């Protein structure tokens, strides 16, 4: 039994086998940092397959679940080895007045499976709540979803509140949802617009990197 086998279990979404194998490997002295790096590559691969439309969403979800299970087991080992990595912290929600939450749920899922820590605020979320929760969490990103032209102005209000409080620079503001666009992002001064959920993790990593 090896890291390769573990990677395979994660890719195939076999949560129980993955967790059990991870435990065995760690007890027998496997390097936790190597393990998480390996599994990060696995998830990147799974994400690529999904982006190319080679696999289905439930498959990536199962892989995400399996990874989550392994990460739980890994946690204490990683802490000891000082190697817990997190790509960024995100608060995400659907804006006030809007109940469409499937898109947001998918974004959340893909962010989590690619190593972000995500706090989900649900739907019908007040602009001020986004900001407060982001402050509490010490988030890097405020991500909002709007599915209706009638609720898009709430995305702008999030940015206005940040400016009013003089903390605009503390967070990267990401927006999405079917009626939103790059044009809208430019207009309201958002940092990032993503057309779909798949492109979000990579692009969020890259705007965080360029700003450091």
């Amino acid at each position, binding site marked *: 039994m090896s890291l390769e086998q573990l990677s395979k279990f994660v890719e195939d979404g076999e949560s129980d086998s993955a967790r059990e194998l991870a435990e065995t490997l760690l007890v027998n002295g496997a390097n936790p940092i190597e393990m998480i790096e390996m599994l990060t590559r696995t998830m990147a691969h799974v994400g690529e397959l999904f982006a190319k439309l080679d696999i289905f969403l439930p498959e990536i979800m199962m892989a995400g679940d399996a990874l989550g299970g392994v990460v739980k087991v890994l946690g204490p080992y990683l802490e000891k080895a000082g190697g817990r990595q997190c790509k960024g912290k995100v608060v995400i929600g659907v804006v006030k*007045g809007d109940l469409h939450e499937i898109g947001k749920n998918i974004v959340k899922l893909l962010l989590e499976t690619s190593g972000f820590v995500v706090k989900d605020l649900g739907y019908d979320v007040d602009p001020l709540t986004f900001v407060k929760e982001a402050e509490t969490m010490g988030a890097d990103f405020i991500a909002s979803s709007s599915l209706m032209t009638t609720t898009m102005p709430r995305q702008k209000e999030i940015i206005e509140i940040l400016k009013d409080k003089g903390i605009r620079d503390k967070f990267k503001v990401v927006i999405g949802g079917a009626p939103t666009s790059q044009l809208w992002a430019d207009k309201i001064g958002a940092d990032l617009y993503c057309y779909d959920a798949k492109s979000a993790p990579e692009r969020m990593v890259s705007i965080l990197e360029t700003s450091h």
Partner: protein
Amino acid sequence: MNKETLQCKPAYRLLTLDQINRLHGATLELLETAGVRVLYPEAVDMLAAAGCRVKSDNIVLIPGDLVEACIQSAPSSITLYNRLGNEAMCLEGRRTYFGMGTDLIQTYDMESGRMRPSRLCDVANAARVADALPDIDFIGSYALPCDSPANLMYIDSFKTELENSVKPIFYTAAGSQDIRVIYEMAAAVMGGKDMLRKKPILIHYAEPLSPLTHSTGAIQKLFFCADNGIPVNYTPGMMSGATAPVTLAGAIALGNAEALSGIVLHQLRAKGAPIISGFGMSTFDMKTSACVYGCPEYRLALSACADLFHFYQIPMWGTAGVTDAHCIDPQASMEWTASLMTAALDGANLVHDVGYLGQGLVGHPAALVMCSEIISYVRRMVRGFEIDTEHLALDVIHDVGPQGDFISTNHTFDFFRKEHWQPHLCNRRILDNWQAAGEKTWADTALEKTREILADHRPIPLSSDVLSSLNALRQQAETDLKHTRFES
């Protein structure tokens, strides 16, 4: 033989009575055990007073006998009028009417040929085109006017639709504030609220939140319609695999539970008030995350829905003339036709979304013209044929005899218009003539026809008195709703 058996009419029934009972039983079980979440406190109190059990988190368990009673009290027939006061649709039995949906955020521009954010002029164009099309029975905004002030989008749409067509209007609203203005506009057109109640020209479209939730905003709109006797269409739009089970039977039971609990809310509020019910079920594409409108599963769920609501004897909503193609292309034709044909065979009553492109996000005025043509075809199909003596025509066959021809008989002359469908646009030219006329595709001729309608069709205008009332209502709304935050 009686007259009935001499008329042969294609119709489709998917479910046997046993299957209907099984699905109905599953629905009642869901409502009694899982219940629905009701987010509007006034509605929770009303349900509790009617004998429902209220659990924590606003979960309401609805007993089966209450559901049955509300199914009984909902009317089996709803008549809609056009704004001239003439009967336009009688939603009952297996009568099928076709019309538009609402809120498409992108529209193809007739001048540039390109897609761009929808504008109020697109609502006007769609209404005017539909006004001229004989097979579109009711209209909807089709486009969402992104150039209107955000809080007035639905008011502007409704007013524009009134100005550009006489047909009944299927409309959305953001909340209890703008729905009232729309209602007042309709009343102004019909000469008062009483007249409007007698002759409704509008159907409101609100939705519960799948799975199993009735939001405050949706209930407020539902109640507003119940209180004022305005027909309301209260139907969930599920996505199988995301907001509903991936299995069709599970999604149908869930959607039916949402629909029937909507009927309970509505009928408890105003017994006998007009409601159109049913459910829609798109599939959630597991590769692209798209919400799929053109799939076969949607049609199956709607066929089951039609059988259930015919059984309940409550007018039923449908969805057809929809496609996932982003432009007018053969995929669009395929999905439009398959869905329109099935809806007609189902005997669905109020079939909306005709001319939808791009998974419910894109519109094109010519799509309405093409779908109207398909509906015309489909209507010929479902009319069937007669097999009485005259239609059997044994005497004519006898007279013509072997090797004769039927072209010059009186029988042909008497019946050819009625028996054979005549397309408005589809090509029937023989090859040489088609080539000589420029080898046009159906999309080309549909575009030409659309341009012609937009240039020439003048809808019957509103009186100047009514127009100024509408303008005044619009102006008032501009100030009143300026800072409104609609309840979701």
